[in-house]
């Protein structure tokens, strides 16, 4: 287990692995996205209360889930980088931020577009919506803080501390619909209870969640490669990679 962990932390090994993983993950992710979107838009029956508007669930829930999951990944990677001083971990954390910000934005917009026909408004200062907006600001803050430092080590440390501190917002987002009176509906999927959604509506949702997860991992692998290469520029292996690379970046 530890051998595998330390082998993974080796930059040349990680770089090569990330290159393979990005295409292995992105191709099935895009195929599953197409299947899930077809299932959600065409095959799933309309909801008895929300009619066809409920179909937004198939892009809103996976985006919202990813926005939180990516933040937790970023905070964990930041913590690993802080504690064990593993450079790859900081590279992973830095690569998570723009992906997480984009899916938080998607969750907010798709939620607003769903809110208009259901609640009569695009936006309400509701605990779930507000805490999700704070998550977007945390991502922006993280990226801004990284950009504010010229020294990479200082940027890594400061941004990791912000990521770890900000992770407290994730349980607030998740449990906001339970802790406070909220316009937002309760959880559709729960680990402890049976899902409150029928099977023919559930499978496209699970397909989309799997597709989004694979997509995130594929994009993360792609971004981390560049980050590792830039950080390891002085190392011989990185210079060998650069000398043998094609200009299109296929290597």
């Amino acid at each position, binding site marked *: 287990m530890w051998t595998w962990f330390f082998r993974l932390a080796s930059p040349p090994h990680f770089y090569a692995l990330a290159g393979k993983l990005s295409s292995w993950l*992105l191709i099935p992710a895009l195929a599953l*996205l197409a299947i899930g*979107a077809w299932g959600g*838009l065409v095959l799933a029956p*309309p909801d008895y209360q929300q*009619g*066809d*508007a409920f*179909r*937004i669930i198939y*892009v*809103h829930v996976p*985006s919202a889930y990813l926005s939180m999951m990516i933040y937790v990944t970023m905070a964990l990677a930041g913590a690993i980088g802080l504690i064990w001083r593993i450079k790859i971990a900081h590279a992973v954390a830095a690569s998570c931020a*723009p*992906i997480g910000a*984009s*899916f938080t*934005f*998607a969750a907010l*917009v*798709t939620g607003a*577009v*769903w809110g*208009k*026909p259901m609640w009569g408004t695009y936006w309400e200062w509701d605990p779930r919506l507000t805490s999700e907006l704070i998550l977007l600001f945390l991502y922006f803050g993280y990226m801004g803080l990284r950009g504010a430092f010229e020294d990479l080590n200082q940027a890594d440390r400061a941004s990791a501390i912000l990521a770890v501190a900000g992770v407290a917002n994730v349980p607030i987002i998740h449990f906001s619909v339970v802790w406070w009176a909220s316009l937002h509906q309760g959880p559709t999927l729960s680990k402890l209870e049976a899902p409150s959604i029928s099977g023919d509506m559930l499978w496209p949702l699970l397909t989309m969640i799997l597709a989004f997860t694979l*997509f995130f991992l594929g*994009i993360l692998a*792609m*971004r981390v*490669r*560049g*980050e590792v*290469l*830039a950080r390891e*520029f002085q190392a011989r292996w*990185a*210079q060998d990679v*650069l*000398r043998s*690379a094609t*200009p*299109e*970046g296929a290597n």
Partner: protein
Amino acid sequence: MDQSLAMGGYAGYILTAYGVTALVVVGNIIAARRRFRRTQLRLRDQLGRRAGRPVGREA
């Protein structure tokens, strides 16, 4: 057919949500590829300039 395309009158909302998500997905692919390519070109350029420099002038 028209009724199913109208999606119960919610087609505008549904297609906007799916459209924004599709843009985010495609945007992530383009941004990640472009960033990797730019990093690679920048580093190759640095490597080339360094190789062209006389020995001893490196910081």
